[in-house]
């Protein structure tokens, strides 16, 4: 038989096979579409297409959802507004008096109050912000924080794991020692310590806190994988042709373990989005003026007892939807990438 005229049968690689398997799994496809939907949402939100005016106070405080109908305001205490008296000791007294006169002439001494709506599609928070817009903006913050932190944590864990698993010896011992210390210190104290060192509070701090405390799981897995692959024949072959250490680690071994890293990223995204809620509770959340699902849940804590349940429901539902979809997709991805299962 002339094998040259017959085309050799095409053998699909790991990724192609995985994609084929995924495509047939309806749950995974459904989850993937939800995740993609969220990603599109945050793309639109971050470019300012939607929810850009979330911080406008367009409704009365705690306006209920439209399907419930308007409610009486929380407290109706009107403070007695009389003009403040003069202060004879005040060095600014004359200037202020003059300004008041000028404003009175120009008619600019009153602020026109905007008409505030009494209900919104899904209600308003304590300052009258639209809950739906807040949820979208919160999604943007939470998801980006989760994604960036997860990628960073996996990157750190992979690099440390690769170096540790590949080189072995004292390098491995040193990393292991470092790893043991990190995992021995209680998570809470680790967060506080990292937060204190970073000083500056903001979104980047949250990302760094999550990344610097979350790399340990990836480290362990990647290290085990590198130790396993290092003694395989293809690595020995690469050695024979004179490949350098770095070349072997990155070009040869890494593609074979990248699926582990990918799954880790997905798992961490979910974990970090949930961890951000706890960080907000502890006070390490987003700064004032920025909204995330964690900050919304934090505010919602005290609102339930007032009977205002809409912020709690919106944030929980949105988060539940995304996290469920992401988790289901991660599971399916892991199953698809693992040739042994099925």
């Amino acid at each position: 038989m002339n094998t040259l005229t017959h085309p050799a049968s095409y053998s699909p690689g790991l990724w192609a096979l995985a994609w084929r398997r995924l495509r047939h799994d309806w749950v995974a496809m459904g989850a993937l579409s939800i995740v993609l939907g969220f990603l599109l949402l945050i793309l639109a939100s971050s470019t300012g297409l939607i929810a850009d005016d979330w911080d406008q106070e367009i409704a009365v405080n705690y306006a209920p959802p439209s399907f419930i109908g308007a409610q009486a305001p929380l407290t109706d205490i009107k403070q007695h507004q009389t003009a403040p008296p003069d202060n004879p000791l005040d060095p600014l007294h004359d200037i202020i008096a003059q300004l008041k006169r000028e404003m009175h002439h120009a008619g600019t001494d009153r602020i026109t109050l905007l008409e505030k709506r009494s209900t919104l599609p899904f209600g308003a928070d304590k300052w009258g912000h639209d809950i739906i817009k807040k949820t979208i903006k919160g999604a943007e913050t939470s998801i980006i924080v989760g994604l960036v932190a997860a990628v960073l944590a996996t990157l750190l864990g992979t690099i440390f794991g690769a170096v540790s698993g590949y080189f072995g010896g004292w390098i491995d011992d040193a990393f292991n020692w470092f790893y043991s210390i990190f995992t021995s210190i209680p998570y809470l104290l680790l967060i506080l310590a990292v937060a204190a060192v970073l000083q500056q509070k903001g979104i980047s701090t949250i990302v760094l806190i999550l990344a610097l405390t979350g790399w340990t799981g990836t480290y362990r897995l990647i290290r085990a994988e590198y130790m396993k692959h290092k003694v395989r024949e293809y690595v020995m072959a690469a050695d024979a042709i004179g490949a350098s250490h770095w070349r072997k680690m990155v070009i040869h071994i890494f593609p074979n373990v990248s699926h582990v890293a990918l799954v880790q990223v997905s798992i961490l995204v979910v974990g970090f989005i949930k961890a951000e809620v706890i960080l907000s509770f502890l006070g390490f959340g987003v700064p004032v003026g920025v909204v995330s699902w964690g900050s919304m849940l934090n505010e919602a804590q005290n609102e339930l007892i007032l009977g205002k349940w809409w912020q709690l429901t919106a944030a929980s539902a949105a988060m539940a939807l995304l996290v469920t979809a992401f988790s289901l997709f991660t599971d399916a991805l892991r199953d698809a990438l693992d040739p042994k299962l099925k």
Partner: protein
Amino acid sequence: MLTLPSASRLTQLSTRRPNHRQPWRWPHQLVCLLALFFISTTTFCATSPADPDKVLHIPFEAADDGFDMVKNANLYSGWVSESIFETLLTYDYLARPVKLVPLTAEAMPTISNNGKTLVFHLKKGIFFTPDPVFKGKPRELIAQDYAYSIKRFLDPANRSPSLIFVNGKIVGMDQLVAAAKKSGKFDYDAPVAGLTTPDRYTLKIELTQTDYNFLYCLTYSSFGAVAREIVEGYPTQLASHPVGTGPYMLQKYTPRSKIVLVANPDYRGFIWNFHSSGTAWDNQLVKEMQGKKMPQIGKVEISIIEEEQARWLSFQNQQLDIDWLPQIATPTALDGEKLTPAMTEKGIKLFRAITPDITFSIFNFWDPIVGGYSLEKNALRRAIIMSYNIDDDIIQLRMGQAIRAEMMVPPGMAGHDPAYRSSISYNIPLANQLLDRFGYRRGADGYRTLPDGQALLLKFASTASASAKTASEIWKRGLDKIGLHAVFLVNNFADNVKAANECKLMIFGGAWQADFPDGENFLQLLYGPNALHGNNACYQSPAYDALYKKAVSLPLGPERNALYVQMNRQMEADSAWSLETTRIRNWVMQPSIIGFKKHPILNSLFQYMDIKKKTS
């Protein structure tokens, strides 16, 4: 000598046939014997009228720090200690404005030498509760106990947070403190010229200078008398082993969780006979409690409950008897200033008390951006103050349970003028005009810069709590309206306190609750020489300081109070603080609780209250 009738005689008595001419009577021997028996048992029984079945359940919203009041200034520790230890004087329960009355002293002290010498005479026959360290002998309260207690505050090894109340005030004490710092040990037996006990029940104090508020300092709850034997006998457990002369004693202590007090069985007690101050509440109290022997409540169970939801739900489940209404419960429990019908149906009672406190935001006068006494900087601070919406603060932050603080001295304290109105108020257009006038132009990003063109960034220091976040939001909304760029840095409490004390923060919030009922307690916070000593604004105004010095040299009264008003105007003129609110506490109690009226200074009121028992 009475003898017990013999058994045979008793049987004879009982079987004697009733004689119609002489009805059967108790033999007189038996009567006397029985009478003696009952009298003796009552004498051996406790003298305290407290009923052990009357148990009061009350929550604390934060944990205490133990009950050695020299070592801590925790509000909740003080609350409990007030009922265990006794100070020389206390306040009249109902009188408003507050009035000092003697407690362990026989009468108010004799004051001489221009207010610098005070002589107290102690009541005789007051005893500490029994303790093994007293070796079985009853331990009487003597003047030396108060001298010892005061010295403990000055001992450097105790590093007392209440040092300020007595530091440098007593003649001869400074040498002793200096010697203690050098040798490492405070000599409690060394004589001190300004703190002497001429006899067993007399205490004489000589002050270094006239201090018209010193009596209030001595009445501060931390100055209850402790016994030296207890302090020396329990060196490491003193915080959990308080032994005092007061109406209650500590029965059980689970730190961070529960404190149980029981009535002191040997307490001398008193008869409830306070005079109404004229209000309907007072009249009701007098009607219910007049003439009763106090204390009535036999046991107090204090639970430490930090979360508001847990506290409120526990109260509604009747697991708690009295509490101050958590803010989140305000809309459901209150209708304006009264309880909602749902509450009154259950018989729940409400007492609204204006707390003698103020909340404010402090500008650091040493900061290059907001500090300084020039017109330009003054205008900047003035505009910032005018951008803070106090109505929003009251409605959103305090759920309507606060009033605007017009002056630094809150209602109920000496020096408060109900007619006083602050000269600064919320005014966005005016703030904008003021900043424009002084050259704070808007830059390309819409935020204002300094007149010389440099960036203007306001840094607010705050903590991680939910209320701090709400306050920051109120600030941000206001500052955005006047074009000032601000960031809100969250730090832990300890760091903030340190930086604040060292005048390193730019703008930060503060609150102060009265330690004693005079305006001086509040005005000292801006007194120049107190910079780095508690004056966290590092505000040093010669005009203000001159007024302050003059005021403290005058006896308490209208002349002094007029100076307080002047000081307030000076503070406003320099835009030193953004004065915000005074809080209102709504005390709610179950229908069985009677006799309660919150005192502005006193916290521990268990010995003045009673519980109506349910008639089954």
